[in-house]
């Protein structure tokens, strides 16, 4: 048993290195001057170490605006998505009413459609509603495509929480919403925070809708902004790598913040009730 433990340990370290390595290389490369970036046998360490790429993206391109836009859009979408999604999932998981399978099916179907097909009609809709270049133009489609995963995951989650606790609350006279709020939600915290991270990162990474629905600089999000670093033929690799590095920091921060919450787990005591 000891030996398998060591193996797991080694495998874990290897896995971490492998998953971290390309990112680490990007980080290092973002500090290299252009001449060193394009060498046939690239040196490991930047020489000389330069902040030029970061200076360019923040001072010349005002990348911080895009970061703010992404944070706002992703943050708002996540809040609304978790709120609406958890309510819907609770209804689907706990309450008996007709049409559940149909509704789950419909929600699922929405997210199985390739976004490319949907861009044009969506653009038309938003244009008529004068929503282009507002945050809402992104939040609405992001919600629509993040909700299915949220609802399905939380439905599965809620179903696995033993019902006795909620029954006890019912018998104490608590209504549906109160039970949900005070009993189910805390128990489902890992699922809620997981969904929050999933939704946040979906919005953070989404490109196609962000490209089509935000046409001016002020409302542009990160993925589109980075693609727009490129000129007619030129591709500023150093700046792109620097931007990629910068982009992962808030998300890493978010995950760090929430990682304990998603791994909190249930103790035997709470389950027994």
């Amino acid at each position, binding site marked *: 048993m000891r030996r398998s433990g060591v193996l797991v340990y080694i495998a874990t370290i290897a896995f971490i290195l492998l998953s971290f390595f390309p990112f680490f290389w990007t980080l290092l490369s973002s500090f290299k001057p252009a001449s060193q970036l394009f060498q046939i046998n690239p040196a490991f360490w930047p020489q000389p170490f330069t902040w030029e790429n970061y200076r360019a993206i923040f001072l010349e391109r005002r990348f911080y605006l895009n970061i703010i836009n992404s944070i706002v859009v992703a943050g*708002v979408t996540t809040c609304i998505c978790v709120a609406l999604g958890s309510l819907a999932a609770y209804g689907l998981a706990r309450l008996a009413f007709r049409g559940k399978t149909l509704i789950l099916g419909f929600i699922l179907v929405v997210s199985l459609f390739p976004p490319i097909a949907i861009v044009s009609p969506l653009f038309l809709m938003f244009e008529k509603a004068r929503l282009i270049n507002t945050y*809402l133009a992104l939040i609405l489609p992001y919600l629509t495509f993040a909700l299915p995963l949220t609802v399905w995951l939380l439905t599965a989650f809620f179903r696995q929480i033993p019902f006795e606790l909620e029954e006890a609350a019912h018998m104490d006279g608590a209504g549906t919403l109160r039970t949900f709020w005070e009993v189910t939600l805390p128990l489902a915290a890992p699922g809620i925070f997981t969904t929050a991270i999933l939704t946040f990162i979906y919005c953070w990474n989404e490109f196609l809708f962000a490209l089509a629905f935000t046409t001016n600089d*002020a409302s542009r999000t990160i993925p589109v902004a980075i*693609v727009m670093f*490129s000129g*007619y033929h030129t591709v500023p*690799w150093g700046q792109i790598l620097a931007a990629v590095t910068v982009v992962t920091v808030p998300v890493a921060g978010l995950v760090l913040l929430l990682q304990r919450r998603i791994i909190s787990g249930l103790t035997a005591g709470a389950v027994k009730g």
Partner: protein
Amino acid sequence: MRLALTWWGCLWLALAVAGCGATPPPPGVSLVLAGGSGPEEAFAQEQLREFHRLHPDIRVTYQATPSSASERHTLYVTWLSSQAPDIDVLNLDVIWVPEFAAAGWLVPLDRQAAAAGISLDDFLPAGLACSLYQGKLYALPWFVDAGLLYYRRDIYAAAGAPLPHTFADLLRVRSLKEKFGLPYGFLFQGQTYEGLVCVALEFIWSNGGRVFDDSGRLVLDQPRNLEALKTMVNLIYRDRVSPLAVATFQEEDCRHAFEQGYAVLMRNWPYAYPLLSQPASRVQGKFGVLPLVHGPDGQPTSCFGGGCLGINTFSRHPAAAWTLVRFLMSRKNLKRRAKALGMLPPLASLYDDPDLQAQFPYLQRLKNVFSQARPRPITPLYSFISDILQVHFSRALTRQETPQEALQKSQTEIAGVLQRFGRAGAP
């Protein structure tokens, strides 16, 4: 209770923020000009400020769109197929004019150009050809691009070798590369994208080959084209002049490799010249440009590229948009743009301008190349044609099929497309 309040508070705050962002349009005539970001945007803002001084009643906003052709095309198609009036003046790639014109998305400019006294003869012939569709003018050429051969002057001088002019001269590159210890000989763009079509067509045209003959018939599968394609493929496998890596290269890969001094020759667009001349470049002062190499049956023929300005059919102020276009197309502004951004002007006479020649000492050579450059097939069906050519040229380059098969299959498939959609779009 507090938790519930925070929850609802956050939700409402979120919804409130969500509504932000929309601003009411300012009064007066408002135009939007779409173009690239970065230095192009900074320069355009300067030009627009001057425009506003000359025309105080017209306010122009600059809309930065991705400079990469396919992303910009995505945006244009999404907007214009929804008949969005948002962008008034469009920055178009030359190969989009036929399809946008056929779709009815561009305002015909013959009348306006004639009224403004714009002489179409002064435009470089290829540029003008790209702006016409079925005899009508749908856009005005704005800047010009064509393939050039960059070479290492120092290496050719040190070896005492004659400069490369023909396909046969390319074979010498191998010994030059080995003699001077360079990893690469001749670099060109061979990835599966539009650039590959440009490069391959340059080989074909420079060997006297054609895709369509003068009567519009498809003549892809013919000996001269085959020779050209074989030459291109042999560069990698038989002659060892080009590395297999070129099958994955785009413009910047070639440029960086050449800039670091890794290659003897490079085919690239003019944009690379100023970059290679910067102090950080390892080949500063050691390179020059030539017209492309040609085959025994042909003349050096580059592929014509560049951009045009067009007016959106759905624009609310087409007359004002035309005023803006005329301003941007003035000799003075074209010259300033060339000096600031290196985007070469579409007017042949500007190439004799001493000011520009001072900044671009190779300008005469460029003019010759541009004058002889050929546009890609001018048809709304070009995207279909390009797609087929990309696949088969790439397959030939990576030896998934022989050049013979590549041309035969391309001929069959393109003929199929033309027959199917043909009446609507033969060039």
